[in-house]
């Protein structure tokens, strides 16, 4: 068959158009097919723009009450317990005042404040250092302020652990399912993690969508108040407006969203402090 240049170009042009158009069409059809028939909007969910928490230390009176809180979180989120610091994985934990608020301790402060265990968790910072360094966007800031961890994407590079100034992140050095506590009990409604990924508190995003408060807040008898910091009418904003609160390492500029009411009323002799 002989063909002149002009015919050849015509055919080539038509096949290109057919090729591109065809794939685009097929793509559009395929996409269309993936849209589920009907969806029901989730109306139960708690919604907010900047979730935060106020922790009233004067309401956390005993070690048991604190343990109940950390246990509640770790139990429902299948957090492994290897009982050694090297392999430790923690979403919510305790530290002394000096380690929680470095630089703010002084030698004349109430003796028992020095030794009181402060409850710590991810601060869901407004300006999270962990998110900036993550090369895969496995950790990212959601519209509601939650600093989320997408385990499907995490490659375990641990940049985020180095970046977070609060020690809020843990690496899975071992297969978490080998931990004794998980072999005994796993929450079948929540996944575990796998070896080689980083995990942390996710502000109970899976409970918020069901209209439930975070598990730690629910377990705390009112010591942990969860709420939307962007809503001036919220309980948490009322607390922040009426009581003096401090945050961890605010000088670093990550803008933490966990506030602490340090208390001390137990020791003050002034009768009427609000």
């Amino acid at each position: 068959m002989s063909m002149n240049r002009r015919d050849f170009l015509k055919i080539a042009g038509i096949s290109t158009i057919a090729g591109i158009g065809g794939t685009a069409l097929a793509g559009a059809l395929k996409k269309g097919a993936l849209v589920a028939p009907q969806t029901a909007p989730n109306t139960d969910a708690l919604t907010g723009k900047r979730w935060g928490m106020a922790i009233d230390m004067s309401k956390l009176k005993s070690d048991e009450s604190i343990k109940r809180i950390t246990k509640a979180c770790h139990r429902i989120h299948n957090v492994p317990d290897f009982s050694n610091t090297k392999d430790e994985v923690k979403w919510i934990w305790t530290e002394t005042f000096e380690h929680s608020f470095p630089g703010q301790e002084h030698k004349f402060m109430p003796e028992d404040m020095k030794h009181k265990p402060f409850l710590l968790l991810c601060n869901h910072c407004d300006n999270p250092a962990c998110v900036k360094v993550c090369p895969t966007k496995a950790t990212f800031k959601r519209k509601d302020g939650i600093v989320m961890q997408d385990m499907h994407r995490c490659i375990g590079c641990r940049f985020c652990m180095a970046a977070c100034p609060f020690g809020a992140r843990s690496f899975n050095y071992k297969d978490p399912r080998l931990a004794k506590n998980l072999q005994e009990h796993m929450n079948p409604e929540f996944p575990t993690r796998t070896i080689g990924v980083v995990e942390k508190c996710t502000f109970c995003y899976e409970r918020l969508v069901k209209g439930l408060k975070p598990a730690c807040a629910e377990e705390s008898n009112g010591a942990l108040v969860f709420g939307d910091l962007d809503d001036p009418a919220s309980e948490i904003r009322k607390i922040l407006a009426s009581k003096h609160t401090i945050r961890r390492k605010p000088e670093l500029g990550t803008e933490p969203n966990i506030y602490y009411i340090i208390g001390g009323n137990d020791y003050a002799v002034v009768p009427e402090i609000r």
Partner: protein
Amino acid sequence: MKIYNGGKILIGLIVFAALFASPFYLNRGKATAKPELKIDTPEIQKLEDKKCVEPKEFMRAEHMQILNNWRDAVVRNGDRNQIIISGQKYDKSLQNGCMKCHSNKKDFCDKCHNYVAVKPYCWDCHIAPKEKKS
């Protein structure tokens, strides 16, 4: 023509050919039948309208794509809108959606995955339901 070390080379070649062809003759006659999936778990039997979120043929070919989309919707966009099929609501979730009906991972997921020799790592994190006889 003379081949140096001809004997050794020949033996070597035969061994190589035998090893190379081993998958073919070792598996001969064992051709596994097309996997038959069980979709009669107690949960499915309880359903009035036994319908998945998409038609069977589509699910067979594209379920991994659907799971991928759900993951993006739920984890990345926080979209937990449920899917309604014949009045029944389903979570966009492997662990709390799919597996609530298909409570027989061994006779459902694994059968096909083993047949086509794929090892999806869903189950490294997601917890499979307690195996139920179907």
